[in-house]
C-alpha cells in the first residue's frame, strides 16, 4: 500500500508539469501580459504605467528563454512561473496584491462549510432513496420516483436559485437571500438555503444513477443465493447489495471529494458566500490571472489526490483488489 502511494505521487509529477505548461500557454501565450495589464489598469493607462505594472510582477521578462547576453537563460516568465508553482509559492493577486496563500486559506472555510454538508446530506439521501426505489422496483412507486427524479434533473440550476432567493428567502423571509457571516448559529442561517439548493439540484440525477447501480447488483447470482438461504429483502439490500454497489459508487464519488474545497461557482456567487468558487469567478471578471492560475493548479492537485484516494478506497471495500 505504502509503495503504491509513493508510485502514485511520482506519477502525479508529469501530470502536474503538463498542467503547468498548459496554464502557461493559456495565460502568457494565448493572452499576452500586456493585454491583461490593460484590462486591469483601464483604458486610460499610459504606456509607462503599463510597463511599471508588468515590471513589478516580472511579466516583462522574455517569455521562454532569456537570450540576453550576460543573463541566465532561465530568467524568463516560463521558468519563474514553473519554479514558483513547484515550490507552492502562489504569489500575490494581480489585482489586489494580497498574498494568495492567505486568500485561499480564508476562502476554503466558507467553501467547505457550504459543500461538505451538501455533499454528505446529498449522498446519504440519494443512496437511501435509490435503495428504497430498488426495494419497490417495478411498482407504481418506482415509476413515480423516476418521474420526480427526471423532473428534478430537468429544471436548470438557475431556476432553483431564483426560486430559493425570490420565494423562500424574499417572499416568505425564512432565510437571508444573500450574505455570509462566520459566527456560530448565524452562519447556519446563511448556509441552510444554499446547502439545501445544492442537495436538491443534484438529487435527481444521483438517485437515477445509484438506482441503476443497485438494480444491476440485484440481478446478480449471489443475490439469488442469499434469497435461497432465507435472507430477508431488507437485509439483502442493506447488506449484500449495498456493499457490492458501494464499489461502483466509490469511483464516482471519492475522486470529487477533495475538490469540495474549491466550493461551488454558481451558488457562492449568487449567495455572496466568500468562498473559493466566488474568488475564482471574480478573479476571471477582474482579469486577476495570478489567482485564476493558482486556482487551476490547486484544483488539479486536489483532483489527483482524489484519484489516489479512490484507488485506496477500492482496495478497502473490494477484497479482490490489492494495491501493488
Amino acid at each position, binding site marked *: 500500500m505504502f509503495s503504491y502511494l509513493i508510485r502514485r505521487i511520482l506519477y502525479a509529477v508529469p501530470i502536474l508539469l503538463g498542467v503547468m505548461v498548459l496554464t502557461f500557454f493559456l495565460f502568457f501565450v494565448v493572452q499576452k501580459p500586456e493585454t491583461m495589464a490593460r484590462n486591469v489598469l483601464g483604458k486610460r493607462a499610459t504606456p509607462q504605467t503599463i510597463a511599471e505594472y508588468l515590471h513589478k510582477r516580472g511579466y516583462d521578462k522574455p517569455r521562454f528563454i532569456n537570450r540576453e547576453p550576460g543573463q541566465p537563460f532561465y530568467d524568463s516568465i516560463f521558468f519563474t512561473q514553473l519554479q514558483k508553482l513547484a515550490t507552492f509559492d502562489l504569489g500575490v493577486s494581480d489585482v489586489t496584491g494580497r498574498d494568495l496563500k492567505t486568500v485561499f486559506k480564508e476562502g476554503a472555510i466558507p467553501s467547505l462549510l457550504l459543500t461538505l454538508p451538501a455533499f454528505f446530506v446529498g449522498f446519504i439521501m440519494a443512496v437511501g432513496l435509490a435503495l428504497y426505489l430498488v426495494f419497490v422496483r417495478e411498482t407504481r412507486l418506482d415509476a413515480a420516483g423516476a418521474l420526480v427524479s427526471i423532473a428534478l434533473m430537468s429544471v436548470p440550476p438557475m431556476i432553483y436559485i431564483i426560486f430559493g432567493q425570490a420565494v423562500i428567502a424574499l417572499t416568505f423571509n425564512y432565510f437571508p437571500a444573500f450574505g455570509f457571516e462566520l459566527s456560530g448559529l448565524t452562519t447556519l442561517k446563511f448556509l441552510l438555503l444554499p446547502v439545501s439548493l445544492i442537495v436538491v439540484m443534484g438529487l435527481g440525477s444521483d438517485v437515477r444513477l445509484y438506482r441503476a447501480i443497485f438494480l444491476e447488483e440485484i440481478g446478480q447470482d449471489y443475490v439469488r443465493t442469499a434469497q435461497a438461504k432465507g435472507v430477508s429483502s431488507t437485509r439483502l439490500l442493506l447488506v449484500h447489495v449495498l456493499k457490492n454497489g458501494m464499489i461502483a459508487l466509490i469511483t464516482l464519488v471519492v475522486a470529487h471529494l477533495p475538490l469540495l474545497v474549491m466550493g461551488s461557482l454558481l451558488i457562492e456567487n449568487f449567495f455572496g458566500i466568500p468562498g473559493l468558487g466566488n474568488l475564482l469567478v471574480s478573479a476571471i471578471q477582474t482579469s486577476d490571472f495570478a489567482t485564476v492560475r493558482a486556482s487551476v493548479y490547486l484544483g488539479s492537485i486536489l483532483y489527483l489526490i482524489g484519484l489516489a484516494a479512490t484507488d485506496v478506497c477500492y482496495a478497502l471495500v*473490494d477484497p479482490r483488489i490489492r494495491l501493488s
Partner: protein
Amino acid sequence: MTAPLLDIRNLCIQFTTENGVVNAVKGISFSMEAGETLAIVGESGSGKSVTGLALTRLLPEPPVIYSSGEIIFGGRDVLKMSPGELRAIRGNKIAYIFQEPSTSLNPVFTIRNQIAEAIRLHRPEVKDIDREVVKYLDLVGIVDAAKRMHDYPHQLSGGMQQRVMIAMALSCEPDLLVADEPTTALDVTIQAQIIDQLKELKARTKMSIILITHNFGIISGIADKVAVMFRGKIVEYGETATVLKNPQHAYTKALIECIPQLGVRRKRLATIDHAALELLDR
C-alpha cells in the same frame, strides 16, 4: 404409508413477457419420499431449473405467474405461503446449490460470514458459530477449514467454491437439497469429485436430493429416480436404472444417445428432431 416429503400436482408456471405469455412449465406432477434422490434431466429451456426454483418460489414474481397446481412440502402448499413462511423454509428445509459457484457466492464477504449468515438465520440455538462453520467445511472436504474459512470466494478454486456452496446448503440441515446443475461450470475431474461428494453426503445424512442436470452421464450412481423434462413437461419418469437401460420416449433415447463414451467410435452425435417430438406429444 406416510405422506411424501414433496408432492407436486399439475404445476404450471408462466412468464409474462413483452411478446405475450410463455408457458415454461406445463402441468407437471411428481412426488418424492424422504431420503429419495430424484434427477431431473432435460435440455436448456426445458423447465427443469424453473421447477427447482419454484419449490421455494425463488423466481421473481412478476414476471413469473404460478397459474395452477400445488407444491405440497411437509404437508403445506408452498404457493399459498406468506413471504415470512417462505423465508423460514428457504435454506432451512429446502437448500440450494447453483450452477456457477464463482458468481453465486457474494464476492465481498468471507466464506465464513456467508455460511454463518445461514446458521444465524435458521439455527439461533447455535452458540459457537465458527465451530459449526468449520464442521461443515470439513464435511465437504475443505482442508485446513479453520484457516480457509476467512478466505474470500475469489481466493478459492471453482471446485472449492462449489464445496463451500454445498457446505452452506448443508449448514442448516435441510430436508431437501436442490442441486441445480452443480457441475456444469466445473471441469470434468472436479465434476466427478462433486458428484462423489453428493453421493457420500446422501449416504451419510438422510437428506433428499433433487439433482437438476442436462447430463445423463452423471446421474446413474446417485439418483434413485429420474424425470425427463422436455418443453415444460415430464415426458418420462421412472427408476434410474430402468430408464437408462430401456428408455421409452424418443427424446430420452436421443438424450442417452448423446452421452459420449470413452473408446467408442462415433461419427456424429445424434441430433434431436424437435418437430417430430412435438408431434409425438400432441
